[in-house]
Structure formats: C-alpha cells, structure tokens
C-alpha cells in the first residue's frame, strides 16, 4: 500500500528527498495541466510548477503534516500561477493554442491531420473561453476539471468556502456554456 502524502511529507521533512520525489510524481501532471491551461504556454507552465515544487521543498519545515499536503501544494501553485499571470497579463501569445508539435506527440491519439487540426481548434476555443471568464471562476474550473480537485481542496486553495467554490464552478460553467455556444457557432 502506498504511503500517504502526509507520511511522505514527514519523511521529506526528515531529509528523505526520495519521499518528496514521490510527491512530485503524484502531483506534477495535474499541476502542469492547470498551469498550462491558465498560462497558455507549456514552458511557462513547466517553470511555474517546477518553482512551486521547489518552493514547497524549501519551505517544507513550515508545513504541518497534519494538514493535507495536496491543499498546500495546490495553494502554492495557484498563487504562483496568478503571480505569473499578472506579470504576463496577456494570457497567451498564441491564444492558448497548443503547439502543433505537442499535439503530434500526444500519446495514443493516432489522429489524422484533420483530427489534430479540429482538436487543436477546440483546445484553442476552450482556452480562450476560459481566459474570458472572471479569474476566480476560471481558476475554479481549472482546478476542478484539469486538476481533479475535490471542492474542499478548491475552497482551501482559493481561500473560499466550499459552497463558494461550488458557486464559482457553477457560474463558470454557465458562462462557459454560453460562450462556447456562441464561439463554436460563429467559427463553424
């Protein structure tokens, strides 16, 4: 049975870097998905996530392992993403579109060129629609759908109540649905 996050964090606090590496393996993928969705740039997302993980390691002694590690890590990552987002302001220079090279290397898709183009276009529309939402709503949606976080963790990472987090997701989905209907209708 794998160790819990809290056990791994205790070990990391005792100097076991392998324990922290296991935590990195557990969370890196989801963190990257959210960061990339927010920043619209793969390299920037990679930087932010790397920095979040490094910061968590550097500040590991300030963390109390009786609390949820993932909440802590998501809070750090989200704040760093927000900081980066404010720096850049323009969310993505390519409109959030995934790079063709990345689409080519998506595992197991076996898509034709046309499929890839359509997929890339959908991704582009989705990212632009998310970026057009109020930031708290878009962040809540990213954490929920790209990070796979339960509402309790979203609330903790965004410093809101659980019902507030749900409300953000609900409002975000409603707006997103309207935008996507409009945009996909316009662009088709």
């Amino acid at each position, binding site marked *: 049975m794998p160790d819990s996050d809290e056990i791994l964090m205790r070990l990391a606090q005792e100097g076991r870097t392998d324990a922290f590496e296991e935590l990195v393996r557990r969370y*890196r*993928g989801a963190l*990257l*998905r959210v960061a*990339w*969705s927010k920043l619209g740039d*793969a*390299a*920037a997302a*990679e*930087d*932010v996530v*790397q*920095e*979040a993980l*490094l*910061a*968590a390691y*550097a*500040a590991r002694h*300030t*963390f*109390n392992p009786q*609390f*949820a590690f993932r*909440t*802590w890590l998501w*809070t*750090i990552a989200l*704040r*760093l993403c927000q*900081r980066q987002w404010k720096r850049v302001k323009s969310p993505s220079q390519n409109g959030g579109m*995934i790079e063709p090279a*990345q689409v080519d*290397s*998506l*595992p197991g898709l076996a898509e034709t060129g046309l499929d890839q183009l359509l*997929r890339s276009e*959908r*991704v582009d*529309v*989705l990212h632009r629609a998310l970026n057009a939402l109020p930031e708290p709503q878009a962040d809540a*949606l990213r954490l*929920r*759908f*790209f990070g*796979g976080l339960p*509402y309790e963790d979203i609330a*903790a990472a965004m*410093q809101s109540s659980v019902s507030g987090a*749900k409300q953000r*997701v*609900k409002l*975000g*989905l*409603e707006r*997103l*649905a309207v935008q*996507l*209907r409009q945009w996909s209708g316009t662009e088709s």
Partner: protein
Amino acid sequence: MNCDRAFDLMTSADRQDDPELLRHLEHCPRCREMQETLSPALEWLSVGPQPEWSDLGLAPSETGPLLSAQAVRIAEAAARDLAARRALSLPAVYRRAISIAVVLMCGIALGMAGLDGNRGSSERPADLAGGSLSACLWTSENGRAQLPNSSAQAVVASCVVCHVPPTVK
C-alpha cells in the same frame, strides 16, 4: 443522493455517468435542467487536452525555473493559511452549536413566558393594568373597593385585559 451530491458528480470529470447520478437525474427536474444548461461546457472540458506531461518531453524554459525568495514566502504563507483556516473552522463549529443552543433556550423561555402570561391574564387580569387589582371590576363589586386609583384609565385597562382577546394589540 441529494442535489448537492449530484452537482459534485455532475462536475466530476470521471463520474458523470455514475448510475447513482443518473437515477437522481431521472427524478429531479431541477438537476436535470442544470445538467442540460451546463452540458455544453462539461462536454468541452471533458474532451479538453489532458496529456500526461512527462510524455510530452517538455523542458523548462531556458530562463527558468529559478526558485525565488518570493515563491518560498508564498509557500510559507500558504502553510500558515492552512493552519489558520483549520483553527478558524473549529471554533466556527462551536460557535454554530452555541448559537443553536441559545436560540433554542430563548424559544423555550419565550414559550414558557407565553404560557405564564396567558395563565396570569386569566387569573389576575387587573395586574397588568398597573395596580393591585385581582378581579374584573365589571363582575366583581369587591374589586372596585380594592381599586387603588379609581381613574377612568385604570378601569378601562382592567376591562381591556379581560375582555379583549390577547391576540389583539
């Protein structure tokens, strides 16, 4: 399953086909309507790209990442916030329990006061008129003798106490 739980499943990337949710949607028009409203966005989010990043072979940009002191401060602040949030949430539970207890006690006290008031008004109607009157002056001639202040106002007050229903103000 309640509607809140249904919303959780509805907005979960991998639980949208949960049989429990589907059963709930069959019987709950409100949630069904919400799902219909949200479904375009849910569909787009579910087909959104979720690559396994390590498979993409992406490398950090050439300029970074550098661990900044600000990032460490953010991590430390997040750790403090987490502890503070927990500390705040526990008293909130206690506060709520105390509030409920106070409201209940007030309700019981008011209820008992109401019962006493009703009993008192039937037994000692003139007390409320501000004197030592203990009986209706209309039906009890002795009461008139006990009237400390035979002003018209006192007499009217004693009548009102007895003969006007308590619900009328």
